[in-house]
């Protein structure tokens, strides 16, 4: 049996940004100023969208919402590492990758309302956005099934000779599912252009990661499947960007798959239905608050004189204006048309659904519970 050296990249934690706001000069990629500002702006944008939408949920304007507070770095770094032809199979906390890749905010928000502007036609709970326009594949709600699907899309790209890469996301909880094993096995054997990213946010609802697995890290599992594995500081957007971009570029160039564990922390509740004070300490949350990915990048940008108060104010104002406008566009829209209940079960309506739809449309509309 081969023993791993302690500095194996699946056992250590790759990071670039240091506590004091400087970057490790050995690792810093010295990204262009615009890229750095874009990273910051996108993380801030997601934070503000989440705050506003959780508020809407608390006011009873939307039925449910899942924030990603504290985990903005991974979706932003991934979104900025991908090409338009790349595919994304999200889990719970990656819907915002779409926004980073240019998907319109108003349409994205319409999904939260499940209204007539929602391209999913009001079928899914909020925070389940997807869109063909940015190759973001619809996620069910089930934990795990998208992981082998991401591998399959990459196998298809490889078979067709395309240069597109597929990225499959999961939380730490998902690594316990058989589908994770299936995905890793297939990826190891077929070596398609896939990057599997696990956001280890320390909690799977109330279950801590140490109760999820007895493995030293999640990244180390890559070795058992013959995959390249990397463990990265998920609250360090520069580090995540470096690792994800490298993995994506490598996959695109035929270098095979990578499994990335991005170590982060879910600052908020699991979802708007959860009360995390029942299972974790305030101290733990406060410790992680000090590693907030946005504040961390901000310190770096200020030290490097890329960001100052005026720029920040401008960004905040821009985000607020964008959010206000997007909400104004979709917030008051009505529900999807009643007939949509029967659409998209199949490509065409078979006779039994034609009969049911006719029967349904002849009835007066139901009272829709407010959402």
């Amino acid at each position, binding site marked *: 049996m081969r023993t791993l050296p302690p500095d194996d990249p699946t056992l250590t934690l790759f990071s670039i940004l240091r506590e004091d706001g400087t970057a490790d000069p050995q690792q810093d990629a010295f990204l262009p100023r615009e890229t750095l500002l874009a990273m910051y702006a996108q993380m801030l944008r997601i934070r503000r969208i989440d705050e506003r939408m959780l508020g809407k949920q608390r006011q009873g304007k939307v039925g449910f919402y899942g924030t990603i507070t504290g985990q903005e770095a991974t979706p932003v770094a991934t979104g900025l590492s991908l090409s338009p032809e790349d595919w994304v199979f999200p889990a719970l906390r990656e819907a915002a990758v779409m926004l980073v890749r240019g998907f319109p905010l108003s349409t994205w928000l319409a999904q939260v309302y499940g209204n007539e502007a929602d391209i999913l036609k009001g079928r*899914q709970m909020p925070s389940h956005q997807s869109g063909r326009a940015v190759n973001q594949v619809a996620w069910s*709600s089930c934990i795990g099934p998208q992981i082998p699907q991401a591998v399959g899309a990459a196998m298809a790209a490889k078979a067709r000779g395309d240069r597109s890469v597929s990225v499959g996301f999961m939380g730490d909880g998902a690594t316990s599912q058989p589908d994770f094993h299936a995905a890793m096995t297939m990826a190891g054997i077929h070596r398609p252009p896939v990057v599997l990213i696990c956001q280890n946010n320390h909690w799977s609802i109330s279950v801590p990661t140490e109760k999820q697995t007895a493995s030293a890290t999640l990244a180390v599992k890559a070795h058992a499947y013959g995959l390249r594995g990397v463990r990265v500081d998920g609250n360090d957007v520069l580090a995540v960007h470096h690792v994800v971009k490298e993995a994506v570029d490598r996959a695109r160039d035929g270098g095979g798959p990578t499994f990335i564990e991005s170590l982060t922390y879910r600052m908020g509740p699991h979802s708007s239905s959860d009360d995390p004070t029942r*299972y974790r300490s305030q101290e733990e949350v406060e410790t992680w608050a000090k590693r907030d990915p946005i504040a961390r990048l901000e310190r770096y940008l200020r030290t490097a004189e890329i960001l100052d108060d005026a720029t920040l104010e401008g960004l905040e104002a821009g985000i607020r204006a964008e959010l206000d406008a997007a909400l104004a566009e979709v917030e008051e829209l009505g529900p999807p048309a009643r007939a949509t*209940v*029967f659409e998209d*079960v199949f490509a065409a309506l078979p006779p039994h659904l034609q009969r049911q739809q006719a029967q349904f449309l002849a009835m007066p509309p*139901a009272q829709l519970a407010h959402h």
Partner: protein
Amino acid sequence: MTQKNMVQAINEALRLEMQRDGRVVVLGEDVGKVGGVFRVTQGLWDEFGDDRVIDTPLNEAGIIGTAIGMAAYGMRPVPEIQFADFIYPAFDQIVSEAAKYRYRSGGEYTCPMVIRTPYGGGIKGGAYHSQSPEALFIHTAGLKVVCPSNPYDAKGLLAAAIQDDDPVLFFEPKRVYRAVKMDVPDEAYTLPLGEAKVVRPGEDVTVVAWGAMLYEALSAAETVEAQGISCEVVDLRTLWPLDLESIVRSVEKTGRIVVVHEAPKACGFGAEILQLVTEQSFLHFQAPPARVTGWDTPFPYTLENEYLPLAHRIVPQLIATANY
């Protein structure tokens, strides 16, 4: 006797069974310290500890697979699947394994366990927190399927299910969890599996329902009463094995039957019930046996009240059946 909702009643049944029988263990995602996402197992971890209230990894196949092993060895596991919609990763363990342990071993090995799972719509859960998959398990020989509609029944039926020697799927109507409160004895009691209950006597139409839809059936019965139609509403309580006698007795009085369920129509349990009644009571029918069900589509989020067979959809069917 105290007023309890269904969450409290089920919690009490679990606690009393765990106190009574050291073989009873609870396992599932988030069932321990936090007491389950619906708080049904609240307090059990504090009372019985890590060995008997097991927070599992996120792995339904693992939850049910290990529960089967425990049951075969002599325990009485009560695994929880967080939502019925997430039971499918464990489908193989339930259908190929738990259901057939007794049969394939000539009765030497058995699988006495109760799989508890919240099911059904009406909570704005969208496509994957709303489904009603009972028919899949009824179709699988070797599984019992229970679905209480109220706190009192839930407590007694769960205790009976835990004491039963066969695997039981226990579907909990999450829409009812906190919506209904009633007097429930504080002490332990069981209600026999396999017994339906007439919850509203009537003369003209037999209405069969279970779980959350029972309330819709009752409300529809109330509405048509004003128009002179008297409905006899039967709460199945145990879906399988079916208490066919109770249904037949009612239908031979009323001559008419309507089954209500929120699962899709095609191959829904309503189809089986109506066929079984037809085989027995064909000559008593004064109207075609009818169903009011979910549509043959997946479950929608925004338009869930258009999908569910709520009272406004049951009423016209009762009128049509009564006036046939």
